[in-house]
């Protein structure tokens, strides 16, 4: 059969294969690049000091490269953003899949699609000119910038991801489960809470983990609203700097070829490992979700 394929068909197949390789080559190239640029830092700086010190003074006479404050900043901001986004996201997903009539469902879906398409700079502007003044008025914060403002913005940014995966996972739950629950006399709400959400659990968690990935990797929006002080965040209203913010802030001025520049690539490696770990988690939960809905 294969031999009968006209040669131009095989040519197209080959071309498509080559195009498919572009992403794989890119990922390998980027990985190689950041490790090659970043790893030499540990020749000069102790590995544990880099990860466990929170003193970041790369251009001081006696420079110090500690990124613990930024790791904590990233985790802190991401956690709070999920605390905000997860309940809203799951509730919206449940509404879309179980309650909304087609008209409402379509309106909400269009809104979510728009939300997902807004560039992050705009989120940053919105945060700076709208959320920050509100935080400034409602709390003791002088600037309105910091962990809370950044988390609110990130929370809004990850909503579409969580809503979509929740809705899709709920719709994928086998019909018999829902009917069985209702037939046993459970109310609709009981069915959702006790049957549908547990059945769709893996998919929903995969969506949340995807959200974590987006939240931790976001740069521009948080840069504009998090205050950007290189200090350990002390609370919700404290200024903070995340791993991504640290790279953007310092890269513009780091001396070419200096240890300072290298340390920014090393920061990138840490971020890369975070994201890799998160992707593995997503993969795991996706697989579990698939097995569950296929009734294995």
């Amino acid at each position, binding site marked *: 059969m294969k031999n009968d394929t006209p040669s131009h068909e095989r040519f197209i197949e080959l071309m498509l294969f080559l195009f498919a390789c572009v992403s794989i080559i890119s990922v390998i190239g980027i990985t190689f690049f950041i490790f090659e640029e970043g790893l030499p830092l540990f020749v000069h700086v102790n590995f544990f000091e880099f990860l466990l010190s929170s003193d970041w*003074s*790369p*251009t001081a006479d006696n420079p110090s490269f500690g990124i613990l404050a930024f790791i904590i900043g990233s985790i802190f901001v991401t956690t709070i953003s999920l605390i905000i986004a997860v309940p809203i996201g799951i509730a919206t997903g449940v509404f879309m899949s179980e309650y909304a009539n087609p008209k409402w469902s379509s309106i909400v879906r269009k809104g979510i699609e728009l939300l997902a398409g807004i560039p992050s*700079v705009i989120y*940053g*502007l919105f945060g*700076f*000119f709208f959320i920050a003044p509100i935080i*400034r008025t409602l709390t003791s914060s*002088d*600037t*309105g*910038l910091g962990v809370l403002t950044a988390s609110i913005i990130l929370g809004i940014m990850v909503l579409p991801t969580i809503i979509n995966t929740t809705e899709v996972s709920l719709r994928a739950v086998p019909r018999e489960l829902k009917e069985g629950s209702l037939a046993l006399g459970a109310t609709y709400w009981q069915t959702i809470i006790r049957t549908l959400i547990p059945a769709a659990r893996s998919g929903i968690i995969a969506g949340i983990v995807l959200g974590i990935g987006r939240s931790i990797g976001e740069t*521009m929006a948080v*840069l*504009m609203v998090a*205050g*950007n*002080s*290189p*200090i350990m965040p002390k609370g919700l209203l404290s*200024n903070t*700097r995340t791993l991504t913010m640290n790279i*953007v*802030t*310092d890269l*513009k*001025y*780091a*001396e*070419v*070829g*200096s240890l*300072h520049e290298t340390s920014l690539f090393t920061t990138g490696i840490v971020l890369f490992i975070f994201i890799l770990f998160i992707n593995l988690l997503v993969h795991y939960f996706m697989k579990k979700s698939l097995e569950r809905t296929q009734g294995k």
Partner: protein
Amino acid sequence: MEKRLSVMIVLLMVAATIFAGGKQETQAPVTAPASAPAVTATYDSTFKGDLAFGGSTTVDPIITAAIEEWKELYPNVHISYEGVGSSTGIKGVLAGTYSLGAASRELKAAEAASGAVTTAVALDAIAVVVNSNSVSLSNLSVEDVAKIYAGEITNWKELGGADSSIVVFNRDEASGTYETFEKKVMGKTEFMKAASVTTGNGDMAAKVGATPNAIGYVGLGFISEKGLKPLSLNGVEASIKNVYNGTYAVQRNLNVVFTELGKIEDAFVNYILSKDGQDIVADLDFIPLP
């Protein structure tokens, strides 16, 4: 509304430079010479070769822009500039790695003794600015500004202003503006780490302009941004005039550094000192020589 819009535009531009990976922190250049500048007296068509320059990141935009212009003037001359910092640049000049260096500071005694020479090609001055709607003060001493940035003075009332906390905006540690401010204002005093960090002159201007009770500092080219009020320092107003007569405290020379000027390097320095070169300096929001 109009004010908010213009601040937004500034922020957008800041964002744009960040996205573009731009090194310079300027607004869009007002005028860029459309064609090769007028041929100067030093023009020599026999110039050719590869030259390596290097030094200060602050002076980088000026040198890089001049190199761009030179490409049209001398197509056979290829110049590279490495932004490795003032100290490394001077070392490179002394070691012969660079035939021309640039430094945003003056030479240390040891460097001068080793044979390095400087020529100023531009001036840089930094203005201390406050949020114009909420801060009534119009003059501060340099010591008081240092105390604010050290976290020792935290309320405007201690300086004779209203009873409200001072909101301090600082710059990223590696910026040239930060470096000058540290040298000329802070001296030996340490910055407090808790101040919010902005990522460029435009970002600083937008945030100080929009945040009540805020203080910050920007290059002199940015003091007329919306919502900003430049403060006089020790009673001296931040103006080009006071920079030229030397009374304004927070200023410095931007220098080129060399041991001996080759023919091409000499022509290059003269180009920066020419009217075309000084126009580049002004476009980049530095101050041309008087």
